[in-house]
């Protein structure tokens, strides 16, 4: 659907994007994660045609009229009503005036009651939802969403994430966020950006399993010192840390080593094992390990 080749953007001496090769599969929900200033908005801006790349190219699998863009804090003329904003968006995108479709997206975004009120009286969350309604109304094939939920309260965030999830299979979504939990929740493909460089790109599970160092959480009853000492001697163990009394985090070279060696080492040390399980890898942890 979208690919970029050696995309670079410079502002004077500052390189905002450095040789970025993005591959957004057709129909995917692609999360572009990275800290503030990583270059997420710049990439979206270049793909949307709002900025020009210093070098490299963007290959789009859809026409420009099939792309819809939502900025992080959407704003509209305050004297328009919410319905008029959505109607304007539909008219501009498809030269159509489908009243039923306008009502439908207003309902989906929970704005039916406020539809005839002027936008100047909308809260920030309502503006965000109005922006999403205006983005969805023309049924775009590609949506570029810049931090769509970052400015919202928990309920608003929940609604926006649900809306994005419902788009799966009907459109390709490229959305940027520095909230990793959001990316982990709705995305199937992830790109990690830092300092303008794409550090990782691929399916979410590949990032979680492949990039993060495997760890096991071990709970022991009684004296845990002999078991910890035994684990520290094992060649396939890279780190052992007791984070609570009897609760030990064991970092291993590979899951395969741990699956065979960990129960044996604990048994040989005479440890009383309450539980033993691989630590669930979060995107946040994978992200931090990748970017630090």
């Amino acid at each position, binding site marked *: 659907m979208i690919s970029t080749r050696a995309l670079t953007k410079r502002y004077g001496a500052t390189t905002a994007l450095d040789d970025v090769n993005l591959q957004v599969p057709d129909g995917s929900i692609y999360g572009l994660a990275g800290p503030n200033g990583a270059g997420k908005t710049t990439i979206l801006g270049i793909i949307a045609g*709002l900025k020009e790349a210093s070098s490299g190219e963007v290959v789009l699998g859809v026409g*420009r*009229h099939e*792309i*819809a*863009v939502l*900025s992080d804090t959407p704003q509209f003329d305050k004297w*328009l009503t919410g319905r*008029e904003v959505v109607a304007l968006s539909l008219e501009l995108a498809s030269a159509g005036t489908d009243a039923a479709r306008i009502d439908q997206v207003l309902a989906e975004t929970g704005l039916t009651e406020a539809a005839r009120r002027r936008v100047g009286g909308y809260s920030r969350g309502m503006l965000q939802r109005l922006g999403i309604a205006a983005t969805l109304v023309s049924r775009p094939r590609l949506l570029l969403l810049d931090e769509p939920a970052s400015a919202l309260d928990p309920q608003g965030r929940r609604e926006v994430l649900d809306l994005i999830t419902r788009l799966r299979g009907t459109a390709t979504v490229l959305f940027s966020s520095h909230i990793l939990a959001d990316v982990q929740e709705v995305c199937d493909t992830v790109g990690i950006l830092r300092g303008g460089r794409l550090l990782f790109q691929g399916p979410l599970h590949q990032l979680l399993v492949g990039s993060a160092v495997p760890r096991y959480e071990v709970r022991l009853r009684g004296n845990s010192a002999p078991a910890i000492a035994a684990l520290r001697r094992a060649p396939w163990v890279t780190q052992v840390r007791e984070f609570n009394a009897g609760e030990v985090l064991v970092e291993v070279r590979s899951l395969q080593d741990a699956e065979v060696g960990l129960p044996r080492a604990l048994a040989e040390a005479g440890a009383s094992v309450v539980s033993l399980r691989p630590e669930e890898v979060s995107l946040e942890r994978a992200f931090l390990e990748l970017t630090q």
Partner: protein
Amino acid sequence: MNLWRLEILRVLRTRRWIALGAVYVGFGLLGPLSAKYLAELLKLSGTGADGITITFPPPVPADGMAQYVANALQVGTIVAVVVVAGALAFDAIPEMGVFLRTRVTSVWGILIPRLVVSFAVCAAAFVLGTATAWYETWALLGPLSASAVAWGTLMGILFTAFLVALVAAIAQWAKGVLGTVLTSLVVLIVLPILGIVRAIQVWLPTRLGGALTELTSGTPASEFWRSSLVAVLATVGLLVVAAWGARRREI
């Protein structure tokens, strides 16, 4: 809802038409009135401390139009620049710029309705104010040459087109509405200053703004061909600059 309707709603709902209409029609009413009663008004305020008495010649019809133009050209131009800048600086709030730019195939799609509606509302206010001043002058001071008023109005409209194009061009390069307004006003102030040199003045498009005064005082319309020509060429050039600026701007 389309971009034309959007611009018409902008003028109506933000009450910009009232601001423009009030300024031009207001000065259209007040200009001839103050020309007629200027001597009396000064008499009422008394003589100076040195006992100086100022004697005015009896007002003539051209004075009514001159008073209107003098006021409308200053305050009216400022209001017009603010109104036009508000419509044409569409990237002033980047999120609004993103909304529009990503939904049109060409920036002309955004620019043309804004240019046309802004020009139409400013020109309409100017014509309405001129018609008011003309009527009031006739009623208070006597008739004016219809052809002089018609030519003067036409040249005033041409000046309005130049003003709109100037603001449009500046809006695509300046930052925000305030920057656009201030830069436009500086240009509109500097140009007449250059006109102190007579050889330059006859070519200046800003001369057209006050053409009504000169024409109703007896200056032939042919005197303004150079200003008119420059105004037309500058308007076209500024529109090209506006489109170029809008296309190259990154938000």
